[in-house]
């Protein structure tokens, strides 16, 4: 199903300047896969080379971090809000 994904400013230049994009998928894994297929420039900033989620990126479905749900197997339903957020940290 079509899902709207909110992008951080960091990724927008790789997605034609859009703040959010609509891609298709029934799980977070499928949504991310569709996103990087459509906007290949986002891949290296979202995923590690082994296909796992980059540690500097957090993916939320509504108010929940997918790492604490079922990660890439987390289902998305009609009306869910998917957000990709940068990690913000330092020393």
């Amino acid at each position, binding site marked *: 199903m079509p899902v709207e994904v*909110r992008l951080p400013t960091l990724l927008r230049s790789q997605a034609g300047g859009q703040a959010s994009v609509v891609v298709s998928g029934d799980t977070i894994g499928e949504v991310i896969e569709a996103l990087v297929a459509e906007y290949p420039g986002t891949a290296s900033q979202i995923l590690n080379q082994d296909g796992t989620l980059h540690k500097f990126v957090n993916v939320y479905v509504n108010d929940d971090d997918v790492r604490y749900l079922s990660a890439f197997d987390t289902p998305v339903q009609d009306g869910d809000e998917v957000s990709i957020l940068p*990690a913000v940290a*330092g020393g």
Partner: protein
Amino acid sequence: MLRLPNEIYLQMIGHCITGLPDEACGLLTGPYGSGEIVGCYPTRNAAASARLYEIDPVEILHVDRDAQKRGVDIIGVFHSHTHTDAYPSPTDVAQALDPGWHYVLVSLRDTHPVVRSYSIVDGEITEESVVVLTHAAKAS
């Protein structure tokens, strides 16, 4: 150039002092690509440390949603250095992801807080000027 209202300037410093002895942090919003700060969101330091800071992603999510409602974006982050200069540490540089963000440092080492701002692009640090807008300046 970073331009911010005096209220936000004072809010950042106040939040950093309140956070002592730990580092304190928060997010800044405005039009992406500009240095015009219109919103300041003090956050918790999830690392609860005098040497590190980390913003809980759920706080970033809520700030992002509020910014979106206001037609702006998160365009920067501020954090304190409790005992060192207002200059990005190697950890700050390693974790600075967004070339369009403003990385604001508040040093509390000396009697008077020192606020400085930087862009960090591919590990390269560039200082920018910080302009605090008083009411008189805003009216002009």
